[in-house]
């Protein structure tokens, strides 16, 4: 559980753009020729973030809507299980065995 939490924090920190902006400002202060390189990195990072967002599943609705859909699905499963149990548990006719 702690490992999963640490992984989650790392992933969220990875998607931050502030470190890259900081690097660009630092290069500008130093008049370093790597400014263009850092700018390109920022652009690439933004583009990758856009692609990642487009490929993520389950975010086509808000969290509230998703919770509603989840509740609806759970209710459907429960109702259908109940229905099947009801019909399977109905008393059957006593059919006399043919002698």
């Amino acid at each position: 559980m702690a490992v999963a939490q640490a992984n989650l924090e790392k992933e969220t920190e990875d998607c931050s753009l502030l470190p890259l902006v900081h690097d660009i400002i630092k290069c500008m202060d130093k008049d370093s020729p790597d400014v263009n390189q850092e700018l390109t990195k920022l652009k690439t990072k933004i583009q990758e973030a856009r692609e990642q967002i487009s490929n993520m599943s389950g975010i086509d609705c808000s969290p509230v809507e998703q919770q509603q859909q989840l509740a609806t699905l759970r209710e459907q499963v429960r109702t259908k299980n109940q229905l099947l149990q009801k019909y399977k548990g109905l008393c059957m006719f006593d059919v006399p065995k043919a002698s």
Partner: protein
Amino acid sequence: MAAATAEKSTKERLLSVLDDLEVLSRELIEMLALSRNQKVPQPGEDTQILELLVQRDKEFQELMEVAQQQGKIHQEMQLLEKEVEKRDNDIQQLQKQLKEAEHILATAVYQAKEKLASIEKAKKGSVSSEEIIKYAHRISASNAVCAPLNWVPGDPRRPYPTDLEMRSGILGHMANLPSNGVNGHLPGDALAAGRLPDILTPHYPWQSSDVSAGMLPPHHGNDFNLEPPGHNKENEDDVEAMSTDSSSSSSDSD
């Protein structure tokens, strides 16, 4: 109004925040580059942009966390959808079986009702078994269903009315046909006309002392009259006379 205030999806919010981040970072970098070139300090505008940038970045990170949680929930929803589909198939199968059972039961009930109606109808038109036996006896007494036990080739008796019997019946008398005697092929025909003396009457093995006087073949023209059973004693006597050799045990006429 509710539609207008509907929550935006997480995807839309993420893309919106990312666009803001891109614009703000570009603005900040351009402002810093401009201020360095012109060597004019900006009156805190860059600080404002920086604060906005930090805020948007934080918002972006929070939204990414939400998106990951939604991804996990989405996987759970996919499993639930598969289960729902499986249950739907089971319910459809059950529905099909119930429909089939209903059809079978409906057919059985319909046939049972038809049979009950037939039974009621038969009860209304019931006939006494004694009458049926008498009727059957009359039909069989004319030897139409089975030859008499003592029938031999040459016996003039037939399972259908012969010429002699027709002429001696009501129709024959009504027509008042001229009787020349030998119209048929049997010498017995002459007897019916009453032309031959007794001494010339042919004797056949089947003739017994029980045959009526005049040595005529038994007259059972009336036996073919299919009248209501149990009301003609004369016919019953004929039946009794003819059925002496019958093996059937007929009941008493009265």
